[in-house]
């Protein structure tokens, strides 16, 4: 009984410690979520006034309109492409980070990697405008070299969005891959080499499979960030790009259809949750195979 009592006191103390953050999360995350969920089922009249009735009308509109379905499709597609590019680009970077010959160089690479995170997304995205604009650095450069006659339209399209996304989100993909690379015992590579596999085959058969968990967690982070970002596509893609976050913004700020915006938000949330959940499931399976 005595140990039980002390256990209770101990866990009581733990609850006391986390209660401020729990309170904060509850008040500013869970409650708004619930309110948003309720809002998404409200009906509106033609002047976007909230009516006291509830229905699935907003969800019906999203899933029957070609425009909204197209927006969902391109949102997922852009997020997917960004994720794929990020993983491919992050791998060599992570490799360099982990295999750098000394600690000083490694620290340097780490700082280089995380330094973009120290500036705000807005500033970094504006930098892309400077680079990609009609009279921007890239076009000027290509024109000077006479590689093109007319400036390319690099800005205000999905390509620009993806480029900016990749730049913003790359560090989030590098970190987990670097971590899983670090976890591989160097002996495994030696064992592979002693069995006759060169560096490339050792990489393909040992290193790559063992970093699958790192790649998956990197993908989950990048995908959810890319599907939900709003500032970056607004700045480099323009507000008319068919992306869910922009559509939500439009509904709230310009059309004032709050229930539709709420329904869209929930649709986006659930889509991302499904993708991330699937990725998590694959990772669990893989880790269970390796670690039991």
């Amino acid at each position, binding site marked *: 009984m005595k140990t039980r009592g002390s256990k209770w006191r101990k866990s009581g103390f733990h609850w006391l410690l986390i209660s401020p953050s729990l309170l904060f999360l509850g008040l500013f995350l869970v409650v708004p979520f619930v309110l948003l969920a309720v809002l998404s089922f409200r009906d509106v009249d033609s002047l976007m006034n909230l009516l006291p009735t509830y229905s699935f009308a907003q969800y019906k509109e999203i899933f029957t309109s070609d425009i909204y379905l197209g927006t969902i499709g391109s949102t997922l597609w852009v997020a997917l492409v960004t994720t794929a590019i990020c993983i491919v680009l992050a791998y060599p970077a992570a490799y360099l980070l982990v295999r750098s010959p000394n600690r000083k160089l490694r620290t340097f690479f780490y700082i280089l990697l995380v330094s973009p995170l120290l500036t705000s997304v807005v500033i970094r995205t504006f930098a892309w405008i400077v680079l990609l604009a009609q009279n921007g650095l890239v076009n000027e450069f290509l024109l000077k070299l006479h590689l093109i006659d007319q400036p390319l339209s690099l800005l205000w399209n999905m390509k620009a969005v993806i480029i900016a996304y990749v730049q913003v989100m790359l560090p989030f993909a590098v970190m987990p891959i670097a971590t899983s690379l670090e976890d591989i015992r160097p002996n*495994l590579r030696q064992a*592979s080499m*002693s*069995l006759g596999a*060169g560096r490339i085959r050792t990489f393909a*058969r040992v290193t790559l499979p063992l970093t699958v968990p790192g790649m998956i967690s990197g993908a989950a982070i990048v995908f959810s960030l890319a599907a939900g970002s709003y500032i970056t596509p607004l700045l480099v893609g323009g507000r008319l790009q068919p992306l869910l976050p922009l559509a939500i913004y439009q509904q709230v700020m310009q059309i004032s259809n709050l229930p539709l915006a709420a329904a869209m938000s929930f649709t986006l949330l659930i889509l991302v949750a499904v993708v991330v959940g699937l990725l998590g499931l694959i990772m669990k399976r893989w880790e269970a195979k390796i670690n*039991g």
Partner: protein
Amino acid sequence: MSGIRIQGVSKHFGDNVALKRVDLEIREGEFFSLLGPSGCGKTTLLNMIAGFLEPTAGEIAIGGRDVTWLPPYQRNIGMVFQNYALFPHLNVFENVAYGLKIRKKPRAEIRSRVEESLAAVRLESFAKRMPHQLSGGQQQRVAIARALAIQPAVLLLDEPLSNLDAKLRKEMQTELKNLQRRVGITTVLVTHDQEEALSLSDRIGILGGGELQQLGTPLEVYRRPANRFAAEFIGQVNLIEARPLSDGQPASPGLLLFAAEGFETEPGKPLLLEAANEPSLKRGGPVKLMLRPERIRVSGEPRERGANCARARVADVSYAGNALRITAKLEGSGELVIHAPDPSFPDLPEPGQPLHLRWQPEDLIPLLPEAGRP
């Protein structure tokens, strides 16, 4: 099947010299152990044979082929690591098949070779298991099967048994030795465990301070250690500094008489030693003699007076089951360590109990200066 020739191999890590001009010939089909304390350079040498390190100087040949500058994957070696290094994402079958798949062998051949290798380590029924589902001993056997499946020219073992518990280690030693005999593969074992080296090897190379201190059969390195390093590393030892006595008369021809430094049978009376005459003792100066603890015989009764015997008192006893380890203090000065077989004492001797010690002239082994030291 091939031997390994190591010629003048040195390895420097920056200013650190890990190996100094090691010459070594490992014969075809031989079980060879590199024995030494940690930091002696034995693993460095193995890694150079395997190709994970390049020597600073010297040459390494496997089966007559110079492999000094070849990467590990072109050397046709089988390597077993201390922590097994099984691929965690592959099952037992796939682990053993790895090297064969790399060599692009036909499927049927891979299957039969893997089954053969798993049978050799008695793990046929574990083919579908993942490494994490195996015990340490089983993992190690998979690692051995994996190394042997590619039919390598040499088998390199890097402290393969040191992660196993004592009983399992003994079993695996026997198994490893039998397997090696059956396959007949040239094997190099790196170990710091002298018992393991003694019981497994055809020959042992003792490494100390980056140099080869002695090369010989287990019997030679234990009974006739070349120098103090080898003597102290393999087993326990009593080291006695002695100077020759010209005036004393040995009991019989072919023996030399010495007086021990720091050992006195009675205050002021040095311990007399009679050693078999041999070339290394002919120089006439002070010598270093080795006396193994198990060579000292103990009796309760005094037998004789003269050389190679002393009266002593028990200073400390520790009981190891099959033997007693006694530290005995001579009546004058100096201590000798004795290993007495269990049956020699009905009860554990008490500290202070008198003992009569004696040994044979052949039990005193002269030691040469160590390699790398004046």
